[in-house]
């Protein structure tokens, strides 16, 4: 049941959070989707953080392709460590929203073209990352 409830949570979020007065919400400077006291922090940055040795941890980089309703990967499970950032390299032909079903929820805005986002989950568990428009679970993080 957990996934269904989570999906609605984000539906609620999308309705209230991305109302008509908001612009298409694709700009880079929207790490504001999370409040500081949240256990998990989503942020978007044009370049991968230089402090992380992300080159050897290549397993934590996920490539995503969005082409209209076609999304790759679909439902792939990826093992990561709690508290360590995951880099999402997205290539998309449209603006999209990735809903991260962690507790609490997070949203990553994706703009048209190539972009890079970073995502950190602080607690162990299975976290679905879902593309909002299609409802497709792009990948699952198995956080340990």
């Amino acid at each position, binding site marked *: 049941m*957990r996934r269904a409830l989570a999906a609605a949570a984000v539906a609620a979020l999308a309705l209230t959070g991305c109302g008509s007065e908001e612009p298409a919400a694709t700009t880079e400077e929207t790490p504001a989707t999370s*409040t500081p006291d949240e256990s998990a922090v989503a942020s978007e940055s044009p370049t991968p953080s230089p402090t992380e040795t992300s080159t050897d941890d290549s397993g934590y980089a996920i490539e995503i392709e969005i082409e209209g309703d076609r999304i790759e990967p679909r439902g792939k499970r990826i093992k990561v460590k709690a508290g360590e950032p995951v880099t999402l390299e997205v290539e998309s032909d449209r603006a999209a929203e990735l809903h991260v079903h962690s507790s609490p929820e997070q949203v990553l805005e994706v703009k048209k073209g190539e972009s890079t986002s970073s995502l950190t989950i602080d607690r162990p568990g299975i976290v679905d990352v879902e593309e909002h428009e299609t409802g497709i679970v792009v990948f699952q993080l198995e956080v340990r």
Partner: protein
Amino acid sequence: MVFAHGVGGAQDLPIPAELAIAGASAALAVSFIVLAVAWRTPRYDAATSGRRAPERLSRLVDSPYFEWTLRLLGLAFFAYVAVAAVFGPDLLVNPTFGVVYVLLWVGLVPASLLFGPFYKAVNPVRTLHLLFSLLTGGDPKRGMYDLPRWVGYWPAAAGLFAFVWLELVYPDATYLSPIRLWFAVYVAVLLVGSALFGSVWFERADPFEVYSTLVGHLSVFGRREDGMLVLRSPLANLDAVPAGPGLVAVVSVLFGSTAFDSFKDMNAWLQFSQSTSLPMTWVNTLVMLGFCVVVGLSLTAATVAAAPREGVRRSDLPALFAHSVVPIIVGYMVAHYLTYFVESGQQTLIQLSDPLGTGANLLGTADGEVNYWLSAHPTFLAVTKVLAVVTGHVLGVVAAHDRAMKVLPKRHQLTGQLPLLVVMVFYTITGLYLLFGA
């Protein structure tokens, strides 16, 4: 932002393989130890077992003040949530979802384990029926007709299936209108049925009351046939579950649907459901039904395999053994729902303070924060889950053994139990596998 209101989305990690294997081995070993060394004459007798509850306790529980306090609290809570369901926002900040799927559906298990038939005591529709009877001067126990015996628990089994279908299959389960419709039908069916058949209808048709009363048989509180309140071991209490037509269906739906819930969280099923062009609502309906049918058929086949002793009809055997699956169900429910109950339950209590989404803080809980300690300790969580499953299995095997001593003839009391024992091991190992594979 509404982030602070989202219901926890993360799911539990799969349990480690070593733990799953250890749990399965323990279940297997205990099963045969019970068979080999346990008592050879029936030990539990619902009619005589138990110690009389302390005078003060039974006087309190049996007093009309106590009864009506619970009844009115239940009715008030129902009305409170109904207001939220009708006038509140159709967003997840609405407490209705958490009340229905977490507090009611999952919470009735711990409440009944602690207090016995909890839902029966607070059942708002039962209270409405009592109030109508008071107004019209009728006897609430009596309806216009006698409920035919063959009906048994079948209406409750259908109601349970309808609820788990809404929860686990229906894609719009987290919108208000399907929930309102479901509960409108629920209230109508119960009110009409109780007018026709009297209050026995609740014991046969109310999915939540039947579920809660079944689980309540694992509490220490029971009543003898004359109504005397007694304290007794959960196993002795479980012996008092009235067997009847449809009881097998009830336990099959409860167990099959929960196993299905784990199954559909498996990554392979997610990948399949996202790559197929099949209509997934139908596929899920059929698969969930399939899980329930497998439980029902395996339980039936395993129990009718042995000929009963004289005076017991062979076709009654599945229902006579169905109570022994209840502890297995409860153990698995604990494993499956523990984090969800603890964490989403806290979230629901917070949301209940603001039923209409107006920023109110009616109960003083609106500023609370969810404690995620359980999720943050996955090893503790996994061990607890496996212990719950194994405990449930052991209690189930013991309950089945005692019943076999009663209904099977001496010459194959032991061999006659073997098929059911094998089926129980199969249930438990499947459960552990699903917890491991999720």
